[in-house]
């Protein structure tokens, strides 16, 4: 009887300790659960912050790869042929250069009511071999205002550019696409098409082309993007190529060959421009 009572008492004491142990264990489980929640929350914040940017990067890169694939499939061989024939010829670069300078000066003469003229154009008889390319030196003497000569040399500096993206300063294309990708990923395709558009087509009606390219972008972002493009190189295209684009298209003087300006001097209204015609 006494033994049973003692056993009963020991059993109750043991139950007490088992109960206490269970409570401690339960507290441990709660603490562990709270820690897991905290870790997961930190992870979620971290991923949540980077995820929208990652999505934009993927959308941007996807559209870029699509556009480049399309260009590689359809247009690159045609551009290569144009470059070989008109921009960087293997034969004499003189005929194409003379045609270009002549048509440019005629276009400028028309736009300035005869105040601009190309006086003389002379070329060296010897081509200098630079290893990767050849250079033929020449001199152009022209009469006109500083503005007219700046325009003509501005067009020559577009030499070699065929698409809108070629005329943009380094980094502008990526900045432009990133801004559109963040604002409206669906407008990326039109933006890519715009960047791969022929530069002469853009120069013929720049406002219309830009309007079409940015039609899917929000109204708030559109002026910023236009500003970005103009400051990134298209302002020079509008100023220099715009007034002569029509004539260049009519006379099939596009693309502009690679002509580098080696020297320039001015005496009154006469400008003497040293030229270097590049060929393969």
């Amino acid at each position: 009887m006494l033994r049973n009572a003692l056993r009963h008492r020991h059993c109750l004491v043991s139950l007490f300790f088992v109960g206490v142990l269970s409570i401690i264990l339960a507290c441990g489980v709660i603490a562990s659960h709270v820690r897991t929640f905290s870790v997961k929350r930190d992870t979620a914040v971290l991923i949540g912050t980077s995820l929208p940017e990652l999505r934009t990067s993927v959308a941007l890169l996807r559209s870029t790869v699509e556009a480049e694939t399309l260009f590689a499939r359809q247009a690159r061989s045609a551009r290569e042929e144009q470059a070989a024939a008109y921009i960087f010829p293997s034969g004499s670069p003189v005929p194409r250069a003379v045609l270009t300078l002549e048509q440019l000066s005629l276009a400028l003469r028309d736009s300035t009511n005869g105040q601009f003229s190309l006086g003389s154009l002379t070329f060296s008889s010897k081509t200098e071999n630079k290893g990767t390319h050849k250079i033929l030196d020449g001199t152009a003497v022209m009469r006109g205002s500083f503005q007219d000569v700046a325009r003509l040399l501005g067009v020559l500096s577009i030499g070699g550019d065929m698409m809108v993206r070629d005329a943009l300063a380094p980094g502008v294309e990526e900045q432009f696409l990133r801004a559109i990708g963040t604002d409206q990923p669906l407008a990326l395709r039109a933006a890519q098409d715009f960047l791969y558009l022929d530069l002469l087509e853009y120069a013929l009606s720049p406002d219309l082309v830009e309007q079409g390219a940015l039609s899917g972008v929000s109204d708030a972002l559109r002026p910023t993007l236009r500003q970005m493009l103009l400051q990134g190189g298209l302002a020079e295209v509008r100023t220099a190529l715009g007034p002569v684009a029509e004539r260049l298209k009519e006379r099939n003087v596009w693309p502009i060959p690679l002509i580098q300006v080696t020297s320039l001097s001015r005496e009154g209204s006469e400008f003497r421009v040293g030229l270097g015609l590049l060929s393969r």
Partner: protein
Amino acid sequence: MTSLPEAAVAPTKAGFLPVLERLGLPTFLFGIVFLLLTTGVTFLLTPDRFPVHVGGKVIRLADLAAEEQRLQDELDQLNQNREELVKSQDNAPILSQVYARRAEMLPIGTTLLSVESLRSSFRTTTIDPIAIPGVTFDSVTRSLVLRGRVTDPTGGSNHILASFVDGLRTLTTVSTVSEPEYIQEQTPEGMSTPFTITIRFADAT
């Protein structure tokens, strides 16, 4: 004086054990139920089950990491595709050479256009204050020298010249712009400041 009843004295005599005996069963039951409940809650309410709002989308926490991994994989794949496309540009060797030659050429044309645009921005309906009758460019020294004169009937020719030089320094195609001397001269048109400015182009990158 009456003595205390035996029952009232007993717990004091027995000490701590009777208390444990009395609390044993309730503590055990509470502890077990508490443990079972917390364990159950831990399994049922895992953090992965809860949705989070990311970039306007509601996504389960468990799917968030998977989504990040998927995007990262896609990004790697696209980068790989792009590298292959860049390599395939070797199929257009002349275009590649054109781009290389273009990068070597000094942007004299675009710089002159910018200079002219800046110069004409000072023009008003009555005066065209900046005249640049002397222009010299040499591709060997990578320098463009502008010689001219700023004329302003109101006497602000120095200020106009300083603003013009400041504007030239903002041109992206230019590396350095020399500081001209600010010496005003009296002319029939008003106060005038002659200038010689040397612009240097950055090395080709």
